[in-house]
């Protein structure tokens, strides 16, 4: 095979064994790699209802056919498991170099099952897998863990968890390299439940490409287009995603104080432009990526800190009522050090503060009190005091207090920093995303804010389902190839098929775009088997009965209208189940039987 290695590595922790497995071509042709392959492989190891934090829940690290090749921005990796935060099938995706290194070991994916008796780390290379006790790393934060690993085995690429992952916080992340994160969904806690602190990897093989000359030509063409596009060539490099703050605020869609408002008076103080005036000490890219979107800041305490992305500025800033950029940077750094997802950390704290300000609970805290918020973050990671309850995530926390409506989530995953009231396509995206409220399954913001409003009215529900489905399905392909989504700002959809065919030598004909729909529907089927239905596809009631701020003052989300149109276009019944003919058309009937899904 070309592009793919054709092999996966299965690691069983109970007896510290491992073996190579050859996969049939069918897995690759139907599901590509990354997210799609991982979701399919999950079903070979577990049922959809598996207890997420039990040893039996597999965690899968999956690269794609383009990972580690000359194709630009192809350094990403997908991590797949059943999420302890959402209960859905879940994949998290991050850049860096680990994914490319995985391919160089000769595997498309690594599956880890079982758990270890003591905190350990794994080393994977041409000699096999080594299981090494790592008690000395217990409760170590990101920087000290990185320093240790980098010193101990400098030629390897590393992923690792922080104290939050060790303590099974339901929204803990996995750090990759020095400071990127597999965020969302709490996959860090799955490594924690298996007693794995870190996994280091080193490969010595080359990823074989079918048509090297054509792949290089495609690389050059892609590089030209990325260079010509003002976002991928300039804005992303200069500001990163942080540049969105002022736009999103003025457009009335910046979540503020637990989404009670959608504009933040001092947004400019925490904006990307303000951030740019801070000292940028270095910029870094992922494997083979010309965009170079991430940077580090030299802060007044002399430390290098990762510069916050848009989501962290919005949620640790406006959504917690904090307008001091240094404090937001500090809280972002703290979350990264502890291994906490910044979106979900903000969400559970914001719900807590809203309850406190409304005197629904007894707690002495206000929005904007960054000192007390910092204390809460530390308590969550350590699971101390109130942090023990908050570590379960906003949905469970707010429900346990009797106010489930104050958790800003769908399916347990907390809303990102785009308020759905001013972007109805984004609203539907949050509602129907298979992993809960997520903006990168299909970031409709890029369409709704930047489109000619005569053609796409961001406030209207009309026609959004069709646009969204196209985006969801195509993003499932990008997550499976895997190529960074930022390239989509500059490249045409058909170009990715050219990339895939040059690398693999396989002619996908008219079946390329269908793969996205297959992955999407398979995820939906897994969730339905796990107990999800239409009732789980709704935003909190706030978004349908309370307007936002500024231009979004009178805007509410008509959720049933959106869902009805979406289900019909998807070929699902009114309860949100894929219909039999769709399952047959997508070649998913066999899998439906495998997971014992009733087909109606």
């Amino acid at each position, binding site marked *: 095979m070309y592009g793919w290695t054709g092999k996966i590595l299965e690691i069983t922790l109970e007896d510290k064994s491992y073996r190579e497995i050859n996969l049939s071509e069918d897995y690759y042709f139907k599901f590509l790699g990354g997210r799609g392959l991982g979701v399919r492989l999950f079903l070979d190891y577990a049922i959809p209802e598996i207890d997420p934090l039990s040893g039996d829940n597999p965690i899968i690290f999956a690269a794609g056919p383009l990972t580690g090749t000359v194709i630009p921005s192809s350094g990403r990796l997908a991590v797949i498991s059943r999420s302890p935060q959402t209960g859905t099938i879940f994949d998290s995706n991050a850049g860096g170099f680990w994914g490319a290194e995985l391919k160089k070991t000769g595997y498309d994916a690594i599956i880890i099952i079982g758990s270890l008796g003591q905190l350990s780390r794994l080393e994977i290379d041409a000699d096999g897998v080594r299981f090494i006790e790592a008690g000395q790393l217990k409760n170590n934060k990101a920087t000290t863990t990185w320093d240790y690993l980098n010193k101990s085995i400098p030629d390897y690429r590393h992923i690792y968890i922080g104290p939050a992952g060790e303590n099974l916080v339901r929204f803990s992340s996995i750090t990759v390299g020095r400071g990127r994160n597999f965020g969302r969904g709490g996959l860090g806690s799955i490594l924690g439940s298996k007693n794995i602190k870190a996994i280091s990897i080193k490969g010595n093989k080359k990823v074989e490409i079918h048509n090297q000359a054509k792949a290089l030509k495609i690389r050059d063409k892609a590089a030209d287009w990325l260079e010509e596009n003002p976002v991928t060539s300039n804005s992303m490099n200069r*500001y990163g995603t942080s540049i969105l703050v*002022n736009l999103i605020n003025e457009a009335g869609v910046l979540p503020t104080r637990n989404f009670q408002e959608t504009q933040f008076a001092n947004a400019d103080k925490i904006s990307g432009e303000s951030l740019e005036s801070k000292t940028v000490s270095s910029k870094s890219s992922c494997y083979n990526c010309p965009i170079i979107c991430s940077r580090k800041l030299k802060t007044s305490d002399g430390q290098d800190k990762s510069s916050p992305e848009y989501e962290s500025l919005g949620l640790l800033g406006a959504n917690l009522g904090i307008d001091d950029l240094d404090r937001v940077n500090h809280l972002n750094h703290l979350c990264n050090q502890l291994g906490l997802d910044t979106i979900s950390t903000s969400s559970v704290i914001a719900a807590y503060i809203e309850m406190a300000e409304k005197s629904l609970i007894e707690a002495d805290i206000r929005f904007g009190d960054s000192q007390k918020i910092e204390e809460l973050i530390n308590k969550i990671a350590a699971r101390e005091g109130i942090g023990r309850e908050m570590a379960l995530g906003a949905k469970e926390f707010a429900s346990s207090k009797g106010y489930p409506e104050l958790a800003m989530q769908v399916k347990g995953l907390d809303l990102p920093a785009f308020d759905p009231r001013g972007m109805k396509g984004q609203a539907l995206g949050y509602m129907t995303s298979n992993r809960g409220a997520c903006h990168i399954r299909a970031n409709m913001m890029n369409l709704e804010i930047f489109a000619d409003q005569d053609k796409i009215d961001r406030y209207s529900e009309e026609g959004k389902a069709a646009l969204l489905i196209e985006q969801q399905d195509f993003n499932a392909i990008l997550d499976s190839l895997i190529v960074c989504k930022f390239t989509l700002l500059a490249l045409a959809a058909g170009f990715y098929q050219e990339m895939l065919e040059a690398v693999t030598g396989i002619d996908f004909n008219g079946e390329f775009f269908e793969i996205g729909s297959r992955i999407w529907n398979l995820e939906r089927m897994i969730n339905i088997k796990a107990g999800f239905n239409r009732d789980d596809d709704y935003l909190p009631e706030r978004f349908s009965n309370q307007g936002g701020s500024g231009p979004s003052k009178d805007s509410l989300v008509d959720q049933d209208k959106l869902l009805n149109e979406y289900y019909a276009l998807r070929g699902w019944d009114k309860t949100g189940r894929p219909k039999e003919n769709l399952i047959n058309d997508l070649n998913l009937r066999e899998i439906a039987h495998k997971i014992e899904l009733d087909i109606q």
Partner: protein
Amino acid sequence: MMDKKDIANKSSGDYIYVNLYGGLEEYSPDSRRKGNRIKLAKANTVQDIIDYYQIPDDKARVILLDGRHVKKDHQLSKGETISIFPLLGGG
């Protein structure tokens, strides 16, 4: 197109307020993002603001008036705040 001098010399005290974001503040004479203002005596359009600050046309990609999208031919009224953004992306 009105040039800088024309607009600056209008006798009326009516102003249009302009926010320039995402790097476009470099086109403000004193590099200001918020609180730029220009005098306006009679109806002018968003295009006049873009021309006044000499912002290349393809860089003014999203124009908001009180948070609502407007087009470049939008007729301005006194006291309005116009925010101009280049093409951005992310999430």
